[in-house]
């Protein structure tokens, strides 16, 4: 073996020993999922409520709470009204649990036009009550928040269309680190049920038929048609 090869062999042997050797004395601890979510998804950006209060997203709105977060803007005329309307229905169904057990955070994607005053008008027009905050802030901050919460499209053209980001409700129980998303266009009953489950410990959930059958049974064979003999004949020729 030449000296160079010998040196390389030693290096490789050392590397190989490093691969299979004993683990370091204090192995790194696995991450804490609650802390990881806070670091990666819940930036402490500054926002203003529709009541003109200056707040921090994490410290004042999310920390220690159960939240339902959606993105909206007051002039949105297509997808947004249905989302907001669904949340209004959910608010009604939740009754006095609003603000006590769950906080709604509706964050504007149009910070320039959606001043606190505009949002206040929007909140009043929709009958938003206690525990529902409409929020505005610096566009760059909100853009970052939107991405961190997963309300974005991978197609830049679609992503540039603000309406596309109003269809998601992000549900979180911050202290226990339980987060999920449901479409704002889901049936309001399903959204309310999802919020209730985010609030309650699993042992207290309503379950089974009480959950499933709250939406009436439906058969909807959309897209079904009868096949004509001509179609089959054409396919058989093709085959």
């Amino acid at each position, binding site marked *: 073996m030449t000296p160079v090869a010998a040196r390389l062999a030693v290096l490789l042997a050392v590397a190989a020993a490093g691969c299979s050797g004993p683990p370091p004395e204090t192995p790194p601890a696995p991450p804490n999922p609650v802390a990881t979510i806070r670091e990666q998804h819940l930036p402490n950006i500054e926002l203003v409520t529709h009541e003109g209060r200056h707040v921090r997203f994490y410290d004042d709105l999310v920390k220690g709470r159960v939240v339902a977060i959606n993105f909206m803007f007051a002039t949105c005329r297509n*997808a947004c009204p249905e989302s907001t309307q669904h949340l209004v229905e959910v608010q009604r169904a939740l009754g006095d649990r609003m603000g006590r057990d769950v906080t709604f955070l509706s964050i504007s994607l149009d910070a320039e036009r959606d001043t606190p005053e505009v949002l206040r008008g929007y909140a009043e027009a929709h009958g938003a009550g206690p525990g529902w905050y409409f929020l505005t802030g610096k566009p760059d901050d909100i853009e970052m928040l939107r991405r961190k919460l997963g309300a974005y499209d991978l197609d830049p053209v679609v992503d540039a269309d603000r309406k596309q980001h109003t269809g998601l409700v992000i549900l979180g129980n911050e202290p226990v680190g339980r987060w999920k998303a449901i479409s704002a266009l889901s049936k309001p009953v399903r959204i309310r049920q999802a919020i209730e489950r985010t609030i309650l410990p699993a042992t207290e959930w309503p379950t089974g038929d009480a959950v499933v059958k709250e939406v009436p049974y439906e058969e909807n064979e959309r897209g079904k048609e009868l096949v004509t003999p001509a179609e089959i004949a054409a396919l058989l020729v093709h085959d």
Partner: protein
Amino acid sequence: MLTRRDILKVGLATGAYGLLGPVPRKRVFASDLPPSPRTTPFVVELPIAPIAQPVRPFATKADPGNCVNVDGTTAVHVHGPRVVTSNTQFFLIHEQARPHSFHPQLPLNSIWGYNGMSPGPTFIAQSGTPFLIRFVNDLPQNDPVGIGEPITAIHRHGGFQFEEDDGYPLDTFCTGQSRDYFYPNEPDDGLEENEHSTLWYHDHAIDITGPNVYRGLAGFYLNFDAVDSLAGELDTSPRALRLPGRMVRLASGEQFREFDVPIVIQDKQFDNNGFLVFDSFDHNGFLGDKFVLNGAIQPFFKVARRKYRFRFLNGSNARFYQLFLSNGQPFVAIATDDLLLEHPVTVKSFEIGPAERVEVVIDFKNAALGQEIFLVNRLQQTDGRKPDQLVSPGTPLLKFIVDRDAADPSRVPDTLRPVTEGPAQLLPRVKVKREFDFERSDGAWVINGEFFDENRIDAKPKRGTPEIWTLKSGGGWAHPIHIHLTGFFILSRNGSTPPVLERGRKDTVAIGGPDFGDVQILLSFPANFRAVPRPVTGRFVFHCHNIEHEDMRMMGQFDVQP
């Protein structure tokens, strides 16, 4: 002992693939996850999951009906003890959290696996001998890792089983509970042409399948019959195909399948300290930058100069692969999904989407002893939307080291499984066609405008009756669509004859995006199983197998009518 030649070869191999790091990816994820730590490729041997061993028959139990899913539902199918045949074989599998080494340079990670392993034990079934498998949920209730929920349902993917045994997403069992699954292990229609080869089993619990499978709940389920037989290449029956593979008994007494190698490919992501990460805020389809084959990152596999059968399964949540051999050698494809092709097809490469299987024969007979050949993925994918493009040289996933000679009595006959009930026979019986549009709508995914709802039925096909379904998708997203309780023929893709590897029966098909477009498929549903004669009816699901889309409810259900 390393020689200079070995060192040079290592140098060349690593040089050629740029030290084999991940394909560069755009940072577009919600959390901007940092790249995984570097790992030296090809220092771990490809793990092969042990074969599941039968146990003494036991009394089967009624299904638990009170495991509460993350959406508050409980099981729809709560049946009594299973009716089994006298020749049924019994198995007992425990779902467990166990330390697992993905790579010696990473710390041990707590995975969830069947019998604590990922992939889980490989089931080896023979047609006509049903299995009764009891899965016991021993997963921890307060798991510190935060990936997955200890609520599970087992789906035998590609298999034909009754509705209560199909892993319907609501039919779960919780920590401390178990559920018995009866698998008839016979072709759906009694026709030999429809015998299955490579199935897999994995978690299917509503809304949490993505993290549960990612955490490790997946394994192989292989099926053999008189033609594609367990004796394989050593079978003396004139009917036997004698494809590569045989059973051997190791010195330990353990059974092992040689020259017939199931390989599940998955992508995973690790944090700076080497711990597995998952992003529950990413609904687009989670991608990792480490390629894990049978549980090990970029392993090596020593082969003899002869033919091998490889059963590739894409067990990734959202990533597509296109696989090549580094020496330019072609693959001889023999099966797609769970069915052998009518004739073998020689291809330079093959694409494999999430949940798809492709079986190939690779013949190493012309390789030099000591030669190293890499299995390379050249398909770049940077987000959950769709694969981007072929790149060069790509990322090597596995290194074959040709290190010995071995006799090769195997063959690849020109005819594998003749199609005796194909479109020509099935089409005249079709009465109904359906169209399903898999769309993205306001940040979520829907089928014909609807999310999966437990209390809505989307189709009512009749048992034993073929139908034509058109699966459409606009908007630039790729969706691997899996339909339970059926195998189907692809009649056309974008109006044209499908590519060569899509002309056999399949159970999962990619649609959407510029590459895949729309497909028209011909599917039939079984009428009865011979093992336990009873109409095969009831509720089954179909869904996108980009599991994040599935968990966001890009799923429908059909109720098979008597």
